[in-house]
């Protein structure tokens, strides 16, 4: 299927393009970008007037729950939610059952995504076997099997020596280490951010310094070893500052944040709302401001959702008992577009954070509309308004703090490898 995407505002930060242009897609690749292009014979013409045409969005941090926890989500439902949300690629975390710590599981995910999924799925293997934090996974084989990074996401590698060796080893074979940065002793049995709200609600708090300390350790280990590191789901003012300073020193550190960290504060927990419970927890207004500033000044490289589906039975329980995490694939784009509406980011910066940068950090060879590039393309209507309703979400799980919110902006067409996989 060939395409002519006509008259859209094409934004491709990789080539510094921001202009009303046409895009021709042939045989799954971007063939040409220009003005007044003629449709190749048999091509479908998509009128993109008033729409943004951007390199396919990439969510570098999702949980697809497949294999093992398919009652929450699977590769089919998760990738469907992805393309509805405008994502053409997702990177799935290894805390599946069994863990992505071997070739068999990585291959299973890649094959299932290719045959039954809606978008590209790039697995992230584990740093340590079974996420035990005890000995390194076979990172070389994981990389050869198609893993694009390694992470023990959900928990930190507590042992600093092991983490240092993992960074050195991973750098040697060229795979990115993604850190879940938390000092577990300080997290303790905390269930939300430690602050005024936790005091009022009588819930045990997780101090922000738990994330700051771990972020500092990771940047120091990266600095000492000269190896790259990527910090997942940055949520605190302190972590942003530490990463900014490390970058200024030349440390090879990159990081991501999630839409909920620049949209919500821990006030969202009031009423003991388990859909506002995640790890790291929602923080305070000054953290939200620092996250936005970090995105604006480039300290924060990427926006990722940490899409974490959980069954209603795991959320419709007492607050302490509820599992951590929220879904995000279908709400990420409008929440992020709001940063542009609010003047925090330029559109160019937003597309970079949601496509170019994740591709670059994990060497995905995506995130660009250059001639010959794989045709992963997202068409965005920035003005359409819609309400988040549980029964209309493509994800199997409905654990979102944004249920009932009116969103502005949506992916109207999602193209993966030249094929239209979603139309709104």
């Amino acid at each position, binding site marked *: 299927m060939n395409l002519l995407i006509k008259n859209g505002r094409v934004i491709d930060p990789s080539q510094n393009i921001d202009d009303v242009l046409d895009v021709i897609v042939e045989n799954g690749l971007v063939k040409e970008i220009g003005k007044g292009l003629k449709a190749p014979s048999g091509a479908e013409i998509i009128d993109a007037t008033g729409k943004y045409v951007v390199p396919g969005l990439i969510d570098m941090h999702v949980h697809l729950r497949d294999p093992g926890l398919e009652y929450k989500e699977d590769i089919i439902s998760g990738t469907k939610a992805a393309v509805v949300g405008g994502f053409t690629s997702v990177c799935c975390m290894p805390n599946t059952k069994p863990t992505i710590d071997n070739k068999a599981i990585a291959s299973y995910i890649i094959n299932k995504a290719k045959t039954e999924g809606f978008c590209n799925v790039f697995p992230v293997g584990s740093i340590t076997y079974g996420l035990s934090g005890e000995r390194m996974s076979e990172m070389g084989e994981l990389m050869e099997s198609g893993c694009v990074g390694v992470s023990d996401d959900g928990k930190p590698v507590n042992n600093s020596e092991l983490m240092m060796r993992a960074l050195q080893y991973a750098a040697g074979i060229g795979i990115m280490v993604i850190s879940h940065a938390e000092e577990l002793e300080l997290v303790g049995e905390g269930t939300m951010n430690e602050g005024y709200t936790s005091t009022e609600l*009588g819930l045990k708090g997780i101090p922000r310094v738990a994330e700051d300390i771990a972020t500092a350790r990771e940047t120091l280990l990266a600095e000492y070893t000269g190896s790259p590191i990527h910090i997942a789901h940055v949520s605190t003012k302190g972590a942003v500052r530490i990463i900014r300073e490390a970058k200024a020193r030349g440390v090879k550190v990159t990081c991501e944040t999630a839409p909920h960290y620049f949209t919500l504060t821990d006030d969202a927990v009031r009423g*003991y709302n388990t859909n506002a419970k995640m790890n790291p927890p929602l923080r305070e207004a000054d953290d939200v401001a620092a996250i936005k500033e970090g995105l604006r000044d480039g300290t924060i490289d990427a926006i990722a959702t940490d899409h974490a589906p959980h069954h209603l039975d795991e959320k419709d329980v007492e607050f*302490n008992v509820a599992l951590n995490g929220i879904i995000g694939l279908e709400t990420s784009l409008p929440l992020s577009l709001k940063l542009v509406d609010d003047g925090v980011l330029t559109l160019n910066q937003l597309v970079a954070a949601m496509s170019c940068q994740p591709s670059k950090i994990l060497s995905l060879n995506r995130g660009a509309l250059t001639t010959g590039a794989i045709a992963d393309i997202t068409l965005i209507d920035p003005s359409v308004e819609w309400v988040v309703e549980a029964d209309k979400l493509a994800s199997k799980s409905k654990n979102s703090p944004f249920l009932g919110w009116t969103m502005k902006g949506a992916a109207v067409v999602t193209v993966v490898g030249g094929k239209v996989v979603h139309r709104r």
Partner: protein
Amino acid sequence: MAEFKHKHIIALRDLSKEDIELLISTAESMREINNRDIKKVPTLRGKTIINLFYEASTRTRTSFEIAGKRLSADTVNITTSSSSATKGETLSDTALNLLAMKPDIIVMRHSVSGSHYFLANKVNCSIINAGDGAHEHPSQGLLDMLTMKDRYGRLDGLKVAIVGDITHSRVARSNIQGLTKLGSSVFLAGPPTMLPPGVEKLGNVTVCSSMNEALQDADVVMMLRIQQERQGKTLMPNAREYSRYFGLNPNNIKLAKPNAIVMHPGPINRGVEMSSSTVDGEQSWILKQVENGVAVRMAMLYHVCGGEMGE
């Protein structure tokens, strides 16, 4: 008479000044029943109350049970050792099963803060909180306020010192919420490891740098139970050192007003947060608190049932 519009009593944070005053004044009138030879009125005859306790309790559970019985309600006690919780049943399922037996009120104690709100969304009977995690213990807050009112005839303008582990104390939170709504000023003291962030923003609350500062000219001194299991952990060195800096004794009690009253929600660690002489001394109103507990709980049960005195 003012009207009580709440179906549930989960937190004093959710109640207005008028609601709290009404509960206290009803409790004052209930007290008369407790002094009769035949301590029973038919007010809640035919009502069923389930006391669902997921945490151990002697005082509170007994007090709620007696309160229900004095109002002629049928009361059933379920404690965690005899419940389905140990069989892995969810709170939601337990509640729905109990609800199928048509109780009018569930009085619950649970270790998870906020679990009563969760429960209230699941059931159609009234929910009364007998303590949830470190959140609130409204019946304790109310009986404490009733006790202070007994002593001073008012709550407005009182200086109340609360000393101990504020972070983990639902008693402290309910007292802070209630007292500051009724015009008292609250002074907190405890090791900084036991003072939660932003607590001074909960109302007219002052965080003191020492116990002496909190005690100075206090009308009421409320000592909190120190959890023995916290000894040797990260919050304090041990009971001995805690007692040295945050224990009430015959010397530092003199900093409070001469006729100040001393309170404690119990159970007391004698020799830790209070010396025995202060527990048993003339200024101790601790047993008065327990006595008032029954009346306060009668008032709570009565008002969530619609508040019609059938006498």
